[in-house]
């Protein structure tokens, strides 16, 4: 696209008589035609300098083509072209300035073939072009490509481009990258040590990679410790490396005879089978290791196979040699500096990872809080476990999905979906309370089972209506992406939104419970339904309202969860056990308790996950075990109601 535009602009220039003074690429090349056609490492510098000085926009493309051996010369007029497609002995020549193509016979052109040295120079020049490109994106791109394939040749162009860099952030990035390059490829020890120390302030992964590359070691073995290596540490067999491994290394180096492995033993025996016997022993009896060893020893005594290596011989060989790890880098000053810097960096990385973990835990906790708070309210006020709570979460999520089918604007649909999900799930909750739970108030275990019946019915119903495959609930564009603090610490905007939502509902619930008439009545019924009833509060109405609010919040939680996870008919079931845990750990009937429970479980889950990141299943297992043990010590949860309010 850009090339097309340039071609157009150039074509315009050609027609405009005043623009003729502008130098084009071809004329510069013609000035140095010999150097271009047969480039040498030294001579090519002149061409590049001129190109740089002219500042032509298509120069980088030309350099890239040149480097890729795509440039040809037309022997008829000596002009240079980019080679196009070949067919039937004809080749398309593409004009370097206009981009116009022309077909000529293939034998009329000669290829320009820069050698390896020249191509490296060209590559450096290309980097320099890109590094001083007027467009910041191109400069960033160039930096990324350097970081991906660091190379000693890039130090020079990078250093040159730094003073003219107008954007501060890019300049800092260039400085950092230069440090990394010098640290690895610098010429003098002082320069490298200085660069290494300069890397101490960052936590970026490429800086750490550079440092650990400097610190790469090779494990070696020798009769005595050589003087000319930069020893990282001495390895003691049996402690730092296993004896088997150490001896294996000796064998690999040809410093000791190989032990007879089980496989070798077997092969030797098989090879020695004669008339159903091995060294006089019948084959049938060789079905134990001891019998096989005996047979082998007999063979070895006959000199047919190498003898066993005894443990004493192994011991002697191990003590006679020294095992050590040596740095690939020979200069101890550099490795020392790198090690110290890496330690400092690791400390910062650890801190950053902890911060990241804390953010993750916070967002997980807010999800658990949203999912569990509705359950906690109904459980606290009515002593009723609602197994269908997860299905109210699912209902909310599907409400969001359905709204998105009708309202294509994601922001607007979210604004509609949140209250609608509250209403739908809340209405379902009230219906359930009126039809089922009301009749089971004094039978909590049966409530649990009845609501479970509702739960499987609702789940299957959702499956019948929406199908089994996951439905997407797309977040609006402004919730995409991450809030990045640095390379290690980041949190997606959706999770921040969920956190805000959770905080909002925490505030709202606290307000309702502590500052409104309804809240007063809810608290009264929680503490003593009989007394509340005699004070003129209708417990029936309060129960209904509580159930409505609790289920409604589950609906909202469903929308929130649907935004980052898929909406399926089983999504509620996935959260229900965690929600129970949150309620049980936190303590029943208390908003703060649920908050504490969600916090504890969120932090704990992330903590265990971080100890063994590959295995989230194990993390959940251990967390549940922890909760079982936790219940031992605080059977009523973290925030337990005391006194009369505690009921039984």
């Amino acid at each position: 696209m850009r090339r097309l535009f340039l071609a157009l602009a150039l074509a315009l220039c050609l027609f405009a008589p005043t623009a003729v003074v502008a130098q084009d690429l071809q004329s510069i090349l013609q000035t140095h035609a010999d150097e271009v056609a047969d480039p040498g490492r030294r001579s090519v510098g002149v061409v590049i300098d001129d190109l740089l000085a002219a500042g032509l926009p298509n120069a980088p493309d030309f350099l890239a083509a040149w480097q890729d051996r795509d440039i040809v010369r037309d022997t008829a007029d000596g002009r240079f072209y980019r080679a196009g497609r070949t067919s039937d002995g004809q080749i398309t020549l593409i004009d370097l300035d206009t981009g116009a193509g022309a077909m000529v016979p293939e034998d009329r052109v000669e290829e320009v073939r820069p050698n390896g040295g020249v191509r490296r120079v060209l590559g450096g020049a290309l980097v320099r072009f890109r590094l001083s490109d007027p467009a910041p994106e191109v400069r960033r791109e160039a930096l990324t490509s350097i970081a991906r394939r660091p190379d000693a040749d890039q130090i020079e162009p990078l250093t040159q481009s730094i003073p003219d860099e107008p954007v501060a952030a890019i300049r800092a990035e260039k400085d950092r990258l230069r440090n990394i390059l010098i640290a690895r490829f610098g010429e003098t020890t002082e320069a490298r040590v200085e660069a290494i120390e300069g890397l101490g302030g960052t936590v970026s992964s490429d800086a750490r990679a550079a440092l650990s590359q400097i610190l790469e070691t090779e494990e070696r073995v020798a009769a005595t410790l050589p003087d000319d290596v930069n020893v990282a540490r001495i390895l003691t067999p049996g402690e730092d490396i296993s004896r088997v491994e150490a001896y294996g290394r000796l064998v690999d180096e040809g410093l000791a005879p190989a032990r007879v492995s089980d496989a070798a033993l077997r092969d030797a025996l098989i090879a020695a089978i004669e008339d159903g016997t091995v060294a006089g022993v019948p084959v049938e009896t060789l079905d134990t290791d001891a019998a096989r060893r005996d047979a082998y020893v007999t063979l070895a005594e006959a000199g047919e196979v190498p003898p066993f290596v005894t443990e004493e011989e192994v011991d002697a060989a191990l003590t006679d040699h020294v095992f050590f790890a040596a740095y690939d880098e020979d200069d101890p000053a550099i490795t020392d500096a790198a090690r110290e810097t890496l330690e400092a960096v690791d400390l910062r990385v650890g801190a950053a990872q902890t911060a990241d973990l804390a953010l993750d835990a916070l967002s997980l906790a807010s999800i658990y809080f949203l999912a569990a708070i509705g359950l906690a309210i109904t459980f606290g006020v009515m002593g009723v476990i609602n197994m269908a709570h997860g299905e109210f979460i699912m209902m909310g999520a599907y409400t969001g999905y359905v709204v998105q089918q009708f309202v294509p604007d994601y922001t607007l649909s979210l604004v509609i979906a949140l209250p609608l999900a509250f209403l739908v799930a809340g209405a379902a909750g009230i219906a359930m309370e009126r039809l089922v739970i009301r009749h089971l108030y004094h039978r909590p275990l049966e409530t649990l089972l009845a609501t479970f019946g509702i739960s499987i019915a609702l789940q299957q119903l959702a499956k019948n209506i929406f199908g089994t495959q996951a439905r997407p609930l797309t977040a609006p564009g402004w919730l995409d992406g991450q809030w990045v603090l640095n390379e290690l610490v980041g949190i997606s905007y959706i999770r921040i939104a969920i956190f805000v939502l959770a905080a909002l509902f925490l505030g709202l619930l606290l307000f309702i419970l502590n500052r409104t008439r309804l809240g007063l009545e809810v608290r009264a019924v929680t503490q003593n339904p009989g007394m509340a009833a005699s004070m003129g509060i209708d417990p029936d109405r309060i129960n209904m309202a509580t159930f409505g609010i609790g289920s409604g919040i589950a609906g909202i939680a469903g929308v929130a969860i649907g935004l980052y996870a898929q909406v399926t008919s089983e999504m509620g079931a996935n959260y229900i056990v965690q929600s129970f845990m949150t309620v049980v750990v936190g303590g029943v009937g208390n908003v703060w308790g649920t908050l504490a429970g969600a916090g504890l479980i969120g932090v704990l889950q992330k903590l265990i996950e971080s100890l063994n990141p590959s295995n989230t299943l194990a993390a959940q297992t251990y967390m549940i075990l922890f909760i079982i043990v936790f219940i031992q010590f605080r059977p009523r949860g973290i925030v337990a109601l005391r006194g009369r309010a505690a009921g039984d």
Partner: protein
Amino acid sequence: MAVSESLPLRPTPRPATAPSTWVFLGALAVFTLVVTVMASQGMISTAFVKTLGKTLCLMLAAVAMDVVWGYTGILSLGHMAFFGLGGYMIGMWLMYARTENIVAPALAQQPLPPTQDEIRDAIGSQIFGVVGSSDFPLVWMFSHSLVAQLALVVLVPGLLALVFGWLAFRSRVTGVYLSILTQAMTLALALYLFQNDSGLRGNNGLSGLQNIPGYEQVPQATISLWFLWASALALALGYLLFAWVVSGKMGSVLRAVRDDEARVRFLGYHVEGFKLFAFTLTAVVTGIAGALYYPQAGIINPAEIAPIASIYLAVWVAIGGRGRLYGAAIGAALVSLLSSWFTGGGAPDINLGVYTVQWTDWWLVLLGLSFVCVTLFAPKGIGGLVDLVQARRVPDRQGDYGPDKGAKRQEEGRE
């Protein structure tokens, strides 16, 4: 109560003589006989015999569940974990021995006769290749021995129940909390087993369990009958055991714990001990039921231990009728057979004109709703129908909402 006053004082009747026990055992014997005859005549398929055998195992688990829930009042939502563990324990031996029978002849073809270690390594790589490993994990330590694994069928569920129950009852976790906690236990176990490095082949589970080592030549039709008999025997013995447990003083204490735990404690009973006994004993029996179930099912994987399975167990008991052993058995048989009939496509679709109700899709909705209805309108479950028949013979003393009001309380009280 004129009727009871006219009776002389007599010891509490042994439960084995209670009419319902004999009726149940008789029905079970007749059922087994009929199935055996029908199967040997080829009137019912091997697959159906297996289904019936599995149903008997589920009935045993349900009876155990009834003791722990209906009699002791502990709504355990984790008993299927013990069921699954029993299955895993026997499955380990089945898989090991069968693989050995396959691997050993192959190794014997080699020039040198194989050592024990070589055979074991070959079995290991055969079994664990699917999870990218070839070594036997520690839990397979005894898998070569049928006796040891049979002992583990009893020991592993028993110990787990003992430890878990001790922890839970000691800290006086009761009611809904305990249910949630047991659910957490089974979830933790399922999640653990789902991992590939759990040593039990992760979500692949153990498979090929229907092949009984040493009896490869025997057709599945015969084996399925053997297992049916074994399951029926286990159910009969289990039923007798529990009928004995829930009768007499022991049964009275258990029911008292269910009805008012605090009061029993104040009367000087060690409530935790009784609960722990009921919990552990039922776990062991459930484990045995599982060990008989999975060879008939042929495969076991961690999904079988998921919390939902244990909830279904509670549903069967509730539908059948809590607090009476035959109720639980009937509930388990009825619901699990109906469930396989509906989900297996056996039930005809209903064409409503605008919409065709396909039972594979709607069965769970029906089950859920009918379960709600049973809880609401018939808390005694199907077993409650028996009361309608006996209503005149056993006076309703309390009019309470307990599932097995009446029973023998009056006589117990006089004792």
